């Protein structure tokens, strides 16, 4: 029962999604942008950009080819129609989100690149479409997504349900892959910025300067495309494109140790105007801990309250479409100055992962999940995708909570096929309140062919992050009624019930060493092994084809020549 509610929670709920996306009737596409700034208790600051384009057209309709693109980027639109994509989520992340220090992010993402796609039911060859799609996206985002192939793609059965419209239960149309080794740099940011309607010339996107953005502890840019309802009755569909960028600036590296942040200090730019194509352009600053913790200037009369991530937060709103926001200088530079230290709200769900063991033969993967709720237990869905060269032994899987065995109620395991597909392990685990649950599984490391190693084999091989998805009980009643003016950051994940909110936590990726052969030796090995085989062959050949004979000494050379002449003459031979 709990399983079905968890797994089915973000499947279709047309009325709710429709409510979140009510727009002015008659407009074809619209664009909204927002920036949320949340000061963190450790002195760091978290900025989250969201750019949303809504367009009521149907890419997947037969016979109707979309040709006139305005706000929606043409490259993505063509990708959607060519590969019959229903939902696309791609993220590029540099750094690891520290849940214990920073709380929960608005949009979680694992280190490296992550891509998960729901294809339309009409697709006959999903693997072929997936392969082409990854290559096309690799070109669009200037990333090496072409390394995604069948050896690192999985089809999760329960962890990644569609976030948009769709009654999807057949996970044959879902593909998920991560590249933990992928590095994110300016080359990836530039094409991402180009997808925005205003580019990086007006609106909030002017803040996205790469020198400052990459000088941070955590940086994640993502693109989320999904179909949503246009109105409450869901009579027609619209496509929603969300481009999100999360960045956390470190107190010491970017902030020079002073607990004082401003837009100029973070981004080396200030805001001068809203994007003219945007219907709404807002900056939200989380002032729930104001005035004890920090002070914010310039002051703004607009306030907004939102329940997000199980907590009721208050935000100061700066509406960039109103001229008075920019003041006399025609530029908006927010300034936050810390006054004291405060206590952090401990995140209710948190996970860690590490490899135990020594040597290059075996090892053990430990995943530790913390439930910090004082009295409520809730189930979590843990998804692990382990490459095929780490052979998991599922009979060694143990799940312990509070030093007692905790058997998962649902296990979906697909073992790996060498060089074809990775392991996929999904489990539904009930976490007792205020406890630590440890999941361990043993693995053996394989010796690969010498051409299958990366150029730096002793660096190790990456194992993608585990995904922990859960409906966490909320301290505060979540808002299930969606209004038109709801900020974007609270409408990303649709909320189905009041008492819980959806959280996805990614663990650390693992770095595992494999035993390596000596790469300088192919010729030597072939020679030596063939020599030993030839020794065997030679001895047997001799013994099989030759017979024992008495060893008679042979005649000296002179006598042999004489015998030759004698044979010609027909005369008896010498002995």
């Amino acid at each position, binding site marked *: 029962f709990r399983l079905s509610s968890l797994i089915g929670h973000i499947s279709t709920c047309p009325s709710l999604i429709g409510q979140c996306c009510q727009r002015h009737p008659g407009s074809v596409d619209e664009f909204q942008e927002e920036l949320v700034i949340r000061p963190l208790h450790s002195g760091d600051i978290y900025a989250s950009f969201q750019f949303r384009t809504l367009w009521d057209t149907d890419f997947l309709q037969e016979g109707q080819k979309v040709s006139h693109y305005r706000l929606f980027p043409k490259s993505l639109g063509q990708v959607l129609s060519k590969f019959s994509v229903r939902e696309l989520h791609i993220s590029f992340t540099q750094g690891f989100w520290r849940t214990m220090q920073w709380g929960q992010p608005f949009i979680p993402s694992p280190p490296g690149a992550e891509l998960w796609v729901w294809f339309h039911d009409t697709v006959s060859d999903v693997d072929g479409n997936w392969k082409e799609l990854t290559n096309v996206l690799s070109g669009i985002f200037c990333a090496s997504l072409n390394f995604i192939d069948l050896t690192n793609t999985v089809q999760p059965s329960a962890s990644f349900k569609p976030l948009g419209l769709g009654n999807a239960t057949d996970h044959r149309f879902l593909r998920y892959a991560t590249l933990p080794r992928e590095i994110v740099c300016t080359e990836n940011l530039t094409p991402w910025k180009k997808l925005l309607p205003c580019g990086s010339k007006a609106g909030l996107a002017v803040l996205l300067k790469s020198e400052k953005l990459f000088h941070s502890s955590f940086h994640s840019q993502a693109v989320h495309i999904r179909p949503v309802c246009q109105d409450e009755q869901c009579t027609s569909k619209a496509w929603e494109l969300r481009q999100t960028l999360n960045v956390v600036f470190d107190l010491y590296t970017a902030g020079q140790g002073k607990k004082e942040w401003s837009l100029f200090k973070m981004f080396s730019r200030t805001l001068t105007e809203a994007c003219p194509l945007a219907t709404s352009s807002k900056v939200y600053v989380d002032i729930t801990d104001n005035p004890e913790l920090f002070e914010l200037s310039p002051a703004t009369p607009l306030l907004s309250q939102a329940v997000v991530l199980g907590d009721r937060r208050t935000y100061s709103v700066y509406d960039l479409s109103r001229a008075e926001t920019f003041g006399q200088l025609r530029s908006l530079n927010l300034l936050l100055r810390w006054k004291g230290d405060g206590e952090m709200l401990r995140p209710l769900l948190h996970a860690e992962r590490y490899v135990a063991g*020594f*040597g*290059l*033969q*075996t090892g053990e993967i430990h995943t530790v999940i913390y439930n910090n709720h004082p009295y409520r237990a809730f189930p979590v869905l843990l998804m692990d995708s382990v490459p*095929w060269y780490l*052979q998991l*032994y*599922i*009979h060694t899987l143990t799940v312990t909570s509070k030093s007692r065995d905790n058997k998962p109620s649902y*296990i979906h*395991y*697909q*073992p*790996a*096929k*060498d*060089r074809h597909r990775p*392991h996929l392990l999904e489990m539904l685990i009930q976490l007792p309140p205020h406890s630590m649950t440890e999941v361990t599984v043993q693995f053996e490391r*394989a*010796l*690969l*062919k*010498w*051409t299958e190693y990366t150029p730096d084999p002793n660096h190790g091989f990456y194992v993608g992050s585990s995904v922990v998805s859960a409906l966490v009980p909320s301290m505060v009643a979540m808002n299930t009624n969606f209004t038109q003016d709801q900020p974007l950051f609270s409408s990303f994940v649709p909320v189905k019930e009041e008492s819980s909110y959806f959280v996805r936590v990614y663990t650390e990726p693992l770095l595992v060493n494999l*035993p*390596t*052969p*000596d790469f300088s*030796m*192919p010729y030597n*090995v*072939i020679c*030596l*092994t063939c020599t*030993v*085989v030839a*020794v*065997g*062959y030679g*001895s*047997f050949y*001799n*013994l*099989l084809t*030759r*017979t*024992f*004979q*008495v*060893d*008679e000494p042979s005649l000296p050379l002179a006598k042999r020549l004489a015998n030759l002449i004698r044979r010609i003459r027909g005369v008896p031979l010498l002995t």
Partner: protein
Amino acid sequence: MAAPLTLLLIVAVTIRAVLFRSSWAELISERVEVVSPLNAWKRVVEGLALLDLGVSPYSGDVFHEVSLSLIHFLFKSILGSDGITAVALYLSIQTYNKNVFRKQKYALESDRYPADCLELLRSPKEMFYIPLKVAMFYLLNPFTILSCVAKSTCGLNNAIIALFILCTLKGSALLSGILLALATYQSIYPLTLFAPALLFFLQRLYIPVNLRRSSFWFFTLQYAFIYVGSLVVITGLSFFLLGSWDFIPSVYGFIFSVPDLTPNIGLFWYFFAEMFEHFRLFFICVFQINVFFYTIPLSIKLKEHPVFLIFMQIAIISIFKSYPTVGDVALYMAFLPAWSHLYRFLRNIFLVSCVLLACSALFPVLWHLWIYAGSANSNFYYAITLLFNFGQILLVSDYFYAYLRREHHLTHGLYLKKKDGTEATLVLK
């Protein structure tokens, strides 16, 4: 002779039980020299766990055993398979000795031996303790003990082959065919034992090995029919058990195409780890043909001596198979006391025994240095592999040489002289 054999069995079981209970059992079952991806017990448990989870054990790449064994394992008494092998070898060598002595008596009566080679003849007194020695060589061989404590299914394979030898020597073609089919079903290489078994039956039934004779073909087809028929039946049974043909690529495809490069004591792993992709198929074919290819020439040369041929075939399989373990080595080493009369003609026995002992000691050392200490690399372990296989090849060819030489002396006399009357040396020409 029952009492010493029983005593031996008790001692062997005690040693295994003691090791089994100690902390060494865990360590031994992880050793790559003792278990391979084909016969590790850990993988059998994994296969059963996958079956529990509702996933086919062959859908992954971790389980490579045949399915009939799946059920069998539940009842298999692991300590028992060694006992079965030892008793079967004991009885077969006893039968073989009786045969040898009988043939020798007939040859002596018909005056076939030259006068000076009487010291080469074997006496019952010398042959009396050989079956017990054979059983002892098998049971107390450290390789066998390690293989048994690790619960490797190699012990099961050895037991089936030993039973097959016993049935062949006792003259039961039906049972021998069925057991050979069972052994082939588990790992394909015992296929080569078809030829020596056939030769033994032909010899026993006094059918001359002449390709133009109809009696030869008649019996060959009978035996082949029993063998192939039981193989088909067993394969069909396993299909019905698991409901799919998945196990064929997973077991036989795995044995032939060697996708798993886990280090072992054989020659395949490093060779194919360092192989250029372009030539991989070619060398796989070469290496696999190498196992089967000695059957015909050896059968032609040793058609009068099928039991020695069985020994040679088992040795060749153990050396050149794709995933050898020490359990396979132990099986052919158990036969060595049966050829103890060849000692005087062995040329390299000291060298070979030193090499094999040294390599057995160095295997764990260099593995530790490579995998755990990180101060050696894979080349060290590979070198010892090469040396170990070289030592085995030398051992087998040495025994072959000694056997052929004894046969030569039995027909031409022991003390040979050159044309001028001086003492001669014998060479292979």
